[in-house]
Every structure is written in C-alpha cells, then in structure tokens.
C-alpha cells in the first residue's frame, strides 16, 4: 500500500494532475456519433428502382425529382424508369428488365393490380424487395404500399369539392387515367359512396379513360362535352385528366357552364385555376411521395418495416396500417395559393 503510493508519487510529474478511473458506466447506451454513415455505405450502395405508371408525364417526373433527392440524401443508387405506354404489359417488360439488371428493390406504381402480380412475385423470388407506390397491386405481390393519401379521404374530399362548386346539384362526368389502376378506381368508388350518402341531386352521367395519354385525354374530354350539353361538372382523376378537361372546356367556349375539379399538379393547372375554369385542384406533393418511397425502400432493405406514426426526415409523420403507408392529407390548390407550389 505504502509502496504503491510511493511508486505512484514517484511516477508522475509534480504538476501533472493524476487521473484514476473509479467506475466505467457501461449500462448507458453507447454514444452514437452524429452523422455517422451507416455501415452499408462502405459497401456497394443499394440499387433501388422506381417504376412509374408511364414515363414522361409531369407528375412522375416530379416524383422522380423527389426520389433523386432521397437517393442523394441516403446514398443509394436510383434507377428511375417507366413504360412508354401506361399498361400492364409494358410495365411487366420494365420489371423483367430490372430483374435482369439486378436491383435490390423495386418500387412500382402498378398500372394493373392483378396482371403485374406474377412478375412482381418473380422479382421477390430473386431476392428483390418489392413495394408499390402511388398505385397498389394485389397485397400478395408486394411488402407494402406507399400511398400518397388515404383513398377514402381523397375520394370523399373530391366529391365534396365538386359538390360545393356545383351547389350540390347537377350532372357531372369523370375522366380517369386507367380503368385498371387500383388507386384511381378506389377514389372513384369513394366519390360515388360520398355522392350517394350526401348529394342525391347530383348525377354521374359518364366516365372516360385516357390511358395516361394526353392526346386521348383531350379527345375524350371533347367527346364528353359534346355528348352531354347539360353537363355542369367534370372530375379529372390522374394528373393529365384535369388539364385536358380544362383545355376542352376553354376550347368549346363552355367556361362558366362547366367547371373542372380533380387530381393534378399545380404547374399543369395554374392557368385554369387562375382563370376560374378549375376553381380547385387537389393533389399531394409527388416530390414528397418519391422521396418517401425511396426512403422506405431503403429502410426495408436495411430490414425495418415502417410503423404507424414514424417520423420520416424531410417528409413528416406517416400513418401505417395493414400494409399501407399513408403519406398525408391531400392539398387543395386554389387561386390564392397555387403560386406557392412549384411542381
């Protein structure tokens, strides 16, 4: 004891304070260094494919921007692709191609819930994580679906918007993107539910599908206007529908008689919103959706499922139930706020 004290006393400099550890606390959680890159980053980055319904349209281009932002933030490799034609057959080809390329995860906005299932299952058999975004497939074919909004909420909201601008009475028609797209059909279903519950004096007179083709959309819009002279409202489902409908209304000189509501981007609809042809257009941020999809795909590759109330950086809180992620509430663009949005 004395000897030890002497040795210690001799061993140190007179002015140097001596530190002697009494106790090391291992019970506390390890200190996580901030901004520490994940371990996977040192290996090959994840390769995530984002498949849109159709390539080249504004909505999916904007979503791709968000996805690219996420890929930058998260350090993953993004393959953004889509069919030239918005149908299941072309989309299957795209997926087959991705399987051959060897990606780690595929996030697909399915044009058809049923017919895409086999190729999605094939991809999963190859060890590729498959999720859907924007438009769902059958649940067996994917791990979860990243939905922009709750279908019921959106459908009922669209019906309410239409009703409020038509004073809850009159005839209207719907133009949808694809007859097979699950999300679009669900919205239409919930619109009809809302109408039958609250708006008995309103009547749905016709429906049209544009197959995500702007030319066809315009033709169908003219057809609807020409076939139904007493039409007072038009609802555009899928982002290219409202601009085509609005253009047809303007071209046929029916402004003031027929109003347009629906789901589209503010950039496409800005002139018609400002002119009053379309008093309100609803959407979400496709950028945000793209970002969220890539984020969740990467998280899944790391082995974690999303959970209800999870806070996603740069996105916000999400909801999650029964394999469906819901990004948030729909946004309404009106004359007053349309200039705030840039997509």
């Amino acid at each position: 004891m004395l000897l030890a004290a002497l040795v210690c006393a001799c061993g140190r400099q007179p002015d140097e304070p001596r530190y002697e550890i009494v106790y090391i606390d291992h019970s506390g959680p390890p200190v996580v260094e901030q901004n520490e890159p994940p371990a996977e980053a040192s290996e090959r980055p994840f390769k995530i494919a984002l498949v849109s319904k159709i390539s080249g349209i504004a909505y999916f281009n904007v979503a791709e921007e968000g996805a690219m932002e996420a890929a930058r933030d998260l350090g993953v490799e993004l393959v953004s692709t889509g069919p030239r034609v918005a149908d299941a057959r072309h989309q299957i080809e795209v997926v087959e191609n991705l399987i051959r390329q060897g990606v780690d995860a595929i996030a697909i906005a399915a044009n058809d819930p049923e017919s895409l299932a086999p190729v999605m299952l094939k991809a999963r058999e190859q060890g590729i994580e498959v999720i859907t975004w924007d438009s769902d497939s059958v649940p067996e074919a994917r791990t979860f679906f990243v939905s922009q909004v709750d279908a019921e909420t959106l459908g009922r909201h669209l019906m309410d918007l239409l009703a409020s601008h038509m004073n809850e009475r009159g005839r209207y028609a719907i133009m949808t993107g694809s007859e097979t797209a699950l999300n679009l059909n669900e919205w239409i279903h919930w619109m009809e539910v809302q109408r039958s519950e609250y708006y008995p004096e309103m009547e749905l007179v016709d429906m049209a599908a544009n197959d995500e083709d702007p030319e066809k959309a315009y033709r169908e819009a003219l057809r609807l206007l020409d076939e139904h002279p007493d039409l007072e409202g038009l609802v555009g489902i899928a982002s290219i529908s409202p601009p085509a409908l609005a253009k047809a209304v303007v071209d046929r000189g029916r402004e003031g008689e027929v109003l347009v509501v629906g789901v589209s981007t503010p950039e496409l609809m800005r002139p018609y919103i400002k002119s009053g042809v379309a008093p309100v257009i609803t959407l979400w941020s496709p950028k945000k959706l793209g970002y969220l999809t890539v984020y969740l795909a990467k998280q899944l590759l790391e082995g974690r499922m999303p959970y209800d109330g999870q806070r996603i950086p740069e996105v916000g809180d999400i909801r999650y139930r029964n394999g469906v992620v819901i990004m948030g509430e729909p946004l309404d663009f009106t004359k007053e706020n349309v200039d705030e949005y840039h997509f």
Partner: protein
Amino acid sequence: MNTIFNRYRFTSKLMITYLLLTVIPISLLGYFSFVQYTRSIETQVGKYVPRILHQANANIDRALEEFIKLTDLIYSSREVMTALRTVSYPSQSEFLQDRFTVESFLSQTYLSGNYRDVLAVFIVSENRLFANSRLAYADFDFQNPVPYGRGFDLRDKFRIVLPDETNLRFEGDVPYLLIVRQIADFDNRRSLGTLFLAVTLGFMDDILQDIAEREAANLWVMNDDGRIVYHTDPEMIGTFYPDVYRFPIKSGSFKKTDGGGAELFSVSVSQLTGWTLVHQIPIKALTSLTDRTLNAVIVIFVLFVIVTGSISIFIAWNFTRPLNRLSRLMRDVQRGNFEVDFQIDSRDEVGMLAHRFNDMVKEIRNLIRENYQIELKQKEAELYALQFQINPHFMYNTLEAIAMSVEDGEKEKVVEMVTLLGRMLRFSLSNRRRTVTIAEEIRHAEDYLRIQKYRFEDALEYDIRSSIEADRYETPKFVLQPVLENGIKHGLEHRKRVRIEIDIVKLPEGPEHPGAIRFVIRDNGIGMSPEQLAQVRRKLQDLSFRRDSSFGLANVHSRIVLTYGKPFGLMIDSREGQGTETTIVIPILPHEGEQP
C-alpha cells in the same frame, strides 16, 4: 532479537511490548479501515452519480427534444407557410401584413406562456426577419446569424448554437441556447428559411439543481471542446474548461488528484447533443462525515493511548520500583549492612520475593550473630582455660611437696618432681595451639598424676590405657587435667585411697555416626548423689562460666561443644559411694605433621 531485547530495562521492555501490542495494531487497523472506507465511498458515489447523470442527461435530451418538436408547430399554420413561401411583394403593406401574420403566430404559439423557457423566436427567410422576444435583445445579425455556420444544410436535423458563436445578446446577458432548424417546404422540396428558438437554461436548472444539492459539488454541461453550456455557477457559463481532453472516460467516474487535493468526477454524455454532463465534487466533501469520525477516533485514540500508556507506565513503575529498591538493598547487604528491611505491602510475586529477601537477611544476620557469639565464648573459654591450666592450688601443694622432699633429702624425688612440673608448665605456656596430639595430652595428664602420686603416695593409683595411635590424632588441649583434678579432689576428700583409670578408644565411623575418639575417666571416689549429679549436668548445659567446683568440667565441655558442636562434649555419670565416670567425646582429628 533476544539479546537486543535483553539489553533494555524492564520499563522499556514493557513500553515496547505495549506499543507493539496496542498502539501499532490499533493505528494500523484504524488507518486501513479509514482508507478502505474512503475508497468504498468513492466507489459507491462513483457508481451512483453516473446513473443520476445519465438520467439527468436523458431528461435534458427530452427537454431539448421538446423544444425541437416545438419548432414543428410552424408547419401547422397554413398562413405562416404561405407567408414564408412568398418571395416578393408588390407593396410594402403586403410584406408588413405577412410579417404581422408570422410574428403574431410566433407570439401566440411560442411566447404565450406555455413554454416559459422560450426566450425568443426568430425566423430568417429570404432576407426577411420575423422575430418575437420576451426580452430586449441586440446584435442579432439575421443576414448572417451564425458566423461559421453559413451555408450549412441542416435538412431535417437541428443544431444548437451557443451564445459565443453568435452576437445575439439578451437584456441582462441571460444565458441561452439557440436551437436552429431549417424550415422545409416538404411539398415543394425546398428550404423556406431558418428558425431560431432561443431558450433559457431554466430547464437545465430545474433538472440539475436538484442533483447539485451540495454546495461543494459543481455540475456543468460542456461540449466536446470544453465550452461550458451550463454551470451551476452562472459565472462559469460560456467559459472554457481546458481539461476536457484529459478526461480518461466518457461515461463513468474518475478521480483527479493534483496539488489541491483529490476530486471525484462523474461524467455522462448526452446522446442527443454529444455534450458531456460533468459532476465534480472534492473527495473531502464526500468524506466529510468520515473525516469527522476520523478526527473523533484520533482524539479517542490519543486519549486511549495516554490513559493506557499511563497505566502501563504505572504498572511497569509499580513493578520495577520494588525491584529497584530490592537491588539497592542487596547492594547495601553486599556492603555489609544487614540491618535492612524491605517494606512492601503487596502479596504478588514481588511481595513474596521481598518477604523471602527479608527472611534471608534475617537468617544471615542471626547466623552471623551466632557465629560471632560462639567465637566470643570460645575465646573466653580458652582464655579461662589458659588462665587455669595450672591451678595455683596445685602449684602450691606441689612446691610444698618438693620442699618437704628437699628437707627429707630425697634428691631424686625432688629432681623428678621439678622436672615434671617444669614440663607441665612448658606444655601449658609454650604451646599456643588449641589442639595437641593425644600423646602429648596423655603425657601431660600422666605428668600431673605422677606429681600427685608423689604427694599422696599410695593413696593414689592410676592407670592409663590407650588403644589408639596417640601420635596420629589430635585433641583439644587440657581436656583431661580438669577431669583428673576433679576426681582426685573428690576421691581423696573422704577416702584414703583412690584409683583413677583412663581409657582412650576410637569409635569407628558408623552409618549415623561420624566417628569419634572417646576418653573415659573413672574414679572410685565417693561419687555424687543424684541431686549433685543433676546439678553438675545442668551446669554443663549452661555454657556460661562461673567459678565454682565444677568450673573445670564445664570449661572442657564448652570448649568442645563450641568448637565442634554436638554430639561432641563431656558427659558425666556418678553413683554415690561408688565413684564417677566422666566421658569426653571429640571428633577424630588426624595430626597433620608438626605445626610451625
């Protein structure tokens, strides 16, 4: 060891033993238990405090997270978001209107009283500053609010800016933290501006003041560089703690020892901010109770040592004092003073020793006295013997007999008598030794008897029979003549004839008898009556001397007894009308040649 130990005095030995057995073990025991106790307190506190700090850190993190969450409230207001998204204004009034919208939102949301720790909130967006503050502030450079943080892209994260990184000052220099968040437009995927939430350190106070209950303890929060974010001493906030790089661990406790004494540090790192929460307390403060106990124990120990030390000194002194006195008395005795008395009351071993010593000294004193008196009596007896070897009465009678013989002309008779008398005189005067050979003693007795024979002629008969080699043994001088004198006197007083026989034998050594030479002198005189005999025997027992009829016998007896002790001596036996038998027993004294 033994020889070294033996060198010390008894008192020293007792003291050393006492020290070895009492003081040293107790002080070692006390020292070790104190050290051990202090160490265990350190360990206990060292384990306990980090847990509290850990908890406190979690609480601080939670509070900070609350503040961070607070910043999200901005997204809940569509008007504010609209205002922030607006980049250019056609008129000043529209800008002022937007500013009013945003600032009133900030006021209602952040400064309405629910969040009392929020000092101020600033939003910097597109060269616009929206601000609301509880206190007056100065120098908030909104174009460049964080000098070194320019261009940093926080995305969805946050940053905490310390007062030293910015120029912002509040009234009264209130310490604060600036929580910086980017306001993101999630829909448009771009940044709308930056929100600065200034909060007081009150929340840290609430959490940490309880822990720093002791005044001696210091508690502070610092970042990696040692910049003190919060300190229980408000003066210290904002200063640097330079020793942060020396901390050996990030989480736990350690002891720092330098010239000023030891201090116990406990540290815990925040997960959210990476800040280190430090609890510093001097070891002295932890062990103050122990130190008080230690002081009390030391006082008690010193008292104990004094008391037991005095007791042991007292015992040692009590033990050695009689021994020292004994040693002094023994020196006195050694010098010849036997008149000592060792007074002691105790009944222990020393008391017993003292009693034995007293007894011994008394015994020695008695023996000396006895020896001395015997010597005196011997001298006296010998002096008398010398004085009365030749009885003047006998001398007179002899000389008268010689005169008568001269008258009668008996020439040969005269010559012989004178020769005999001369020889007797020479024997008694010339020889100064106490003992003579038995042969010389016999001749002297014979000389005496022959002279008496000349006087009394046929009335005296004698016979001397010796069965020993009379030249080889010695005897005390003048033992026979007094007996013969006595016999002749008593024999011729009442009778006309007397016969005296002398037998000399050597008694061999027996198992119980040392061996002796016996002279037996018998006469056939009138003897003694039993009363007379008893009287004579009494006189023989009394070793003092009186001049009376039996003086000669007593003298012989005394001399033999005083010189050789009993059972040697003279015994007398007599019957009235039949005669007296006198026995002299002496030890065997071999003659060792002529004495010079």
